[in-house]
């Protein structure tokens, strides 16, 4: 019996030692998993952005882009996010929408800015999209929806352009799963608190757009594709309750108004 006990111990030790020893080898580099994922992500991001840049009008008004960039840069700076790697795009479209593409592309529709009542509301949505980007939710979603092999074939030129278009549309018009959405909400609130931006308006925009969606469902993409908006708003309110929040503006009142005016002038 003692011999058997020793043999069982040796067996368990053998298993864990082998696992431990093999774990010392850097398989990720050896199999080039990270490089493969990274290069796939880069190519996918560019392919998807190409689709939007061809089908939609990009706003290149210096003042509007500068204001939007100030908001993103401020959040990045206060949260140690590398701003230089983010590709921020503003598209002329009335739909209330913003979304993230692979390789750190963030696309904002002018309709979202126009429907935001203040910069904090916009920052909440921007923070939410930045959280999807930072937490790699985009690639997780794509891997889950179509798998790595399809993504790799798409970037190596073997995939059909139609499939790439469908995937680009999927990213712009469908939500992540509930867990990832709420993770991005909370991360956005954290970004805002660190950046001294009041997170309460983020909950307000969710409440308001949730109501608007009932009247104009086709335009309020960001809400119709992000279900349970009221529940999410309540979660945000609960999360910030009791937290010490410093409220500062990134843009001056004039800058914010000018940005909205410029957008309504339709000056590109």
């Amino acid at each position, binding site marked *: 019996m003692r011999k058997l006990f020793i043999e069982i111990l040796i067996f368990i030790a053998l298993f864990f030692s082998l696992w431990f020893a093999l774990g010392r080898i850097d398989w*990720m580099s050896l199999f080039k998993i990270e490089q493969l994922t990274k290069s796939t992500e880069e190519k996918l991001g560019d392919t998807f952005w190409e689709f939007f840049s061809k089908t939609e009008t990009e706003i290149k008004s210096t003042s509007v882009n500068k204001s939007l960039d100030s908001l993103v840069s401020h959040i990045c700076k206060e949260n140690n996010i590398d701003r230089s790697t983010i590709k921020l795009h503003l598209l002329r479209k009335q739909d209330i929408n913003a979304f993230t593409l692979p390789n750190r592309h963030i696309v904002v529709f002018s309709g979202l800015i126009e429907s935001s009542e203040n910069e904090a509301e916009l920052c909440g949505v921007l923070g939410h999209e930045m959280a999807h980007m930072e937490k790699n939710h985009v690639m997780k979603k794509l891997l889950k929806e179509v798998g790595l092999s399809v993504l790799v074939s798409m970037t190596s030129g073997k995939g059909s352009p139609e499939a790439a278009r469908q995937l680009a549309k999927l990213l712009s018009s469908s939500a992540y799963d509930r867990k990832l959405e709420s993770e991005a909400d909370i991360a956005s609130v954290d970004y805002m608190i660190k950046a001294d931006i009041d997170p309460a308006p983020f909950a307000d925009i969710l409440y308001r757009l949730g109501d608007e969606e009932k009247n104009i469902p086709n335009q309020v993409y960001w809400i119709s594709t992000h279900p349970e908006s009221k529940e999410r708003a309540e979660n945000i309110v609960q999360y910030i309750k009791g937290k010490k929040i410093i409220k500062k503006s990134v843009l001056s009142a004039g800058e914010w108004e000018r940005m909205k005016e410029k957008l309504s002038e339709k000056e590109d």
Partner: protein
Amino acid sequence: MNSNGNFVYTPGEHEAEKASNSYLMSLIAVIAGLPLPIINLLATVIFYLANRKSTYFVRWHCTQALLSQFSLLLMNSTGFWWTISIIFSDERVTTHYIAYMITIFIFNLTEFIATIYTAIQTRKGIHVQWWLYGNLTNIVCRP
């Protein structure tokens, strides 16, 4: 692994065939049941239950085949669910995951080779007692 013909009695041709089949059963199930690790255990359990009233030699080898599947079931199930969580949740492929999969591959391969060898030997009526599992079987399976 101990390979010797010194069983308590000399098994007959029919017994040798049945004992050998218990190993073949788990081999076929491994091939058919991948990647679901429970399949080969189930196949071995069914074969064990069917032969539990058979002669000692047959029972002994059915038990050894069954016990060897248990440890593999634990390892393979962990690997299976780990893989599922990578595919369907936030889990990512890590060096530890790859190391684990290689480890269970080595254990499965060792068991696979040992099973083929034992199936051949028992078919010839030669008693093969595995390291660890042989002693376990001696405790569980009585004449």
